[in-house]
């Protein structure tokens, strides 16, 4: 039951997001949320550029998307695989287990931190 609610909510939010981010360009439309971290510190957080990157991706501009937020673009395949693993967990518990191992989470965290420092310094 709880599962069904979560997946339905995810599906609805994802659909709405795809439509909105396809039709409106976050870099020229002012209603899109801004990053609090960037507004206060002037540094880009790991999520900065995600909205523009999604807009670019939905229009097939992969290179632009990578420029806006490479972490997001590179996370999407990982997220997709993780979602499939979660979805099929009852049938393939080993797959879920392997993907959700400690080192995966730690590696992702390290990549995020290193990349965030790099995008602000370079």
């Amino acid at each position, binding site marked *: 039951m709880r599962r069904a609610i979560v997946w339905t909510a995810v599906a609805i939010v994802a659909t709405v997001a795809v439509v909105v981010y396809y039709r409106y360009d976050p870099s020229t439309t002012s209603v899109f949320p801004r990053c609090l971290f960037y507004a206060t510190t002037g540094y880009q957080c790991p999520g900065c550029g995600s909205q523009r990157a999604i807009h670019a991706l939905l229009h097939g501009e992969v290179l632009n998307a990578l420029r806006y937020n490479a972490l997001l673009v590179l996370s999407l395949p990982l997220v997709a695989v993780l979602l499939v693993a979660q979805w099929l967990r009852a049938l393939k518990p080993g797959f879920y287990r392997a993907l*959700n191992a400690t080192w995966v989470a730690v590696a992702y965290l390290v990549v995020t931190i290193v990349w965030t420092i790099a995008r602000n310094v370079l």
Partner: protein
Amino acid sequence: MVKYWINQDGVQEGPLTFEELKAKGLTRDAYVWREGLAEWVPVSSLAELTICLLPTAEVSQPALSSAPEVLPEASEASEVTEVAEEPVAAAVPPVLPPDEAVAPAAAPAAAPVVLPAQQPWAAAQQQPVPAQPEQELPPTNLVWAIITTVLCCVPCGVVAILYASKVSSALQSGDLAAARSASEKGAWWCIGGIVAGIVFQPLLPLLML
């Protein structure tokens, strides 16, 4: 693909895939083992197999009464000495004596080889009992943690990723309670981060006016 071993009406079969089980149909008193389980369990205790159950038409006899028929058959197999105590007590059988499950562990991958089909419960003694950390992994919420980090709220997402990593490592060290608690906390950080991202962020431009 998960493989199942089943024992119903005194006949052991396996490895079987989920689809094969579904096609075959299970009676309510069948016992099942698959990787990740410490011992044989009644089929009714595995939610994923509910749809494999045959309709209970004439199988209405209580599950307990059929279990004893299974145990004596084990003694017909060559392992008489090991199982000798069991059949005597067959009138009121414990489901599966826990001591059978405490048998020394072998690698789960070896399961298909070690199970001689004609010795159902004696085989359970050599049954690869999965090592302790093979317990059910609580949801790590790693996906949601990553989504929270990249899309919604970085601080919450980072905390959630840390908790996600803790779920697996706590389970590895055999601390199921800690794994569960980390799983739960991680979930709340994800929910908090996503809510903050969806509700709070759009308000920011207004706050800055």
